[in-house]
C-alpha cells in the first residue's frame, strides 16, 4: 500500500489525485506532464501507479449484472424496436430469420456483461429460438442451406482461442452460427455423438455452458 500522509498542496497528493485519468489516457497534456515529472522522482507514486493500473483492470472486468427478468424486459423494450424494425425494413429485403434473430438478440445485449449461468442459459435460449425458425424456413425452400445447429456453447470471456478450437475439434463440433450478442455459438454435432460431445465440452473449465438445442427434425 502506498498510502502517504498528505499535506495540503502536496505534490504526492495532486499526482495521486490524477492517476486514474493518467492510467486511462484522459489527462490533457499539461496535467500528464506534471504527473510524469513527479513520477520520475517519486518511488511511492510509481508504486501507486502500478496499483492504480491493477485496480482499474479489475474493476473494468467486474461482471456486473442483474437478474433483469428477460421476458419482461423483452416485452418492455423489444416490442418498440420490433415495431421500429417492421417500419424500416421490408420483409422481403432481409431474410425473415435475420430480422427475428436481431430482435431476439437485442434484449440479450444486456448479457454482454452477464456472468450467471442461469441467466446465460436464459439468454442463450432466447437468442437461439430464431435459429429454429430459420431452420424451418430454409428447409421449405432450400434444404441444402440448412445449417443444422443442434447445440449451443458459451465460452468464458478469458478463454483462449486455441483451446476453444481444440475442444470443438475433439468433440467433433462445428460452429454454424454466432457469436450472438450474448456471446453464444450454435454448433453442429453428429446426432449420435452429441450427448458424449456435450459432456466432453461441459468438462472444460473455459466453457460456461454447453447445451443441446432443438434437435434436427427427421429428414
Amino acid at each position, binding site marked *: 500500500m502506498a498510502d502517504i500522509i498528505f499535506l495540503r498542496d502536496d505534490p504526492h497528493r495532486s499526482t495521486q489525485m490524477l492517476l486514474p485519468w493518467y492510467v486511462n489516457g484522459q489527462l490533457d497534456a499539461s496535467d500528464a506532464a506534471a504527473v510524469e515529472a513527479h513520477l520520475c522522482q517519486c518511488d511511492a507514486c510509481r508504486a501507486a501507479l502500478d496499483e492504480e493500473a*491493477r*485496480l*482499474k483492470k479489475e474493476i473494468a472486468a467486474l461482471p456486473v*449484472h442483474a437478474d433483469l427478468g428477460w421476458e419482461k424486459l423483452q416485452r418492455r423494450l423489444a416490442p418498440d424496436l420490433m415495431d421500429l424494425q417492421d417500419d424500416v425494413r421490408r420483409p422481403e429485403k432481409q431474410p425473415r430469420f435475420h430480422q427475428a434473430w436481431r430482435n431476439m438478440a437485442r434484449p440479450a445485449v444486456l448479457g*454482454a*456483461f452477464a456472468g450467471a449461468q442461469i441467466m446465460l442459459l436464459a439468454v442463450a435460449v432466447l437468442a437461439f429460438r430464431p435459429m429454429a425458425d430459420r431452420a424451418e424456413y430454409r428447409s421449405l425452400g432450400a434444404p441444402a442451406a440448412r445449417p443444422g445447429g443442434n447445440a449451443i456453447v458459451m465460452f468464458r470471456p478469458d478463454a483462449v482461442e486455441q483451446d476453444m478450437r481444440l475442444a470443438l475439434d475433439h468433440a467433433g463440433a462445428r460452429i454454424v452460427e454466432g457469436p450472438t450478442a450474448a456471446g453464444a455459438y450454435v454448433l453442429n454435432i453428429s446426432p449420435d455423438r452429441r450427448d458424449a460431445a456435450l459432456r466432453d465440452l461441459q468438462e472444460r473449465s473455459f466453457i460456461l455452458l454447453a447445451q443441446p438445442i432443438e434437435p434436427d427434425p427427421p429428414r
Partner: protein
Amino acid sequence: MIEPADHVEAKGGDARNREELRLAARIGRRDLKAFETIYRRYQPRLARFLLHILRRPHLVEEVLDDTLMVLWNRPDSFAGRSKLSTWLFSIAYRKAMMALRKQEDPIEDQAGEERISPGSSPEQHAGANRVKTVLLEALSRLSADHRAVVDLTYFHEMGYREIAQIMDCPVDTVKTRMFHARRHLRQELAGEFSDWV
C-alpha cells in the same frame, strides 16, 4: 462478454462524435434506423453504469428504458453542445438519482443483486473470484455518487471533465470522490494484492 472495445478512442473519438451527431440529427427526423444504431451501442454501457449506481435491477430496467426513450421522444433536447455519450450518461445519472431518492426501502441483499458467477470450475478461479467478490462488496459500501465516478473512470474510461458534466458538479468534486473511493477500495483489497497477477 464485456466489450471495452466500444471505447470511443479506439475508433478515433472525433470521428465517432461526428458520426453520433449525424445520427442524432437523423433521429430528429424520426429515422428509426439511426435510433436503433444508438440504442444498440449505448444500451449495454448504460445498463452497466446504472447497475453500479442503482443496484436494483427493476430500477435499472425502468431508468434505462426512460433514458433511451428521451432521445427518441424528445430529440430536440439534445442540442449537440456536448458529445451524445455525455448527454445520454447525464440523463441516465439524473434519472437514476431521482429514482434512488424516491426509493425509500433499503436494499435487502446488496451482494445478491450485484454479484459474480463462479464460472464452471470454482477451484481454478477461486483467487481471481475472491478479488472480484471483495471489490464488489467494497463498492457496495460506497455511495452511489462514488460508484458512478469509479465506473465512469475505470470502465467507460472518461476524463474528469466529462464526468463533471455528467454529474453536474465541479471538477474538483470528481477528483475528490475518486480519490476517496480508491482509498477505500485499496484498503478493502489490502489482503488480496498477493493474488493479483
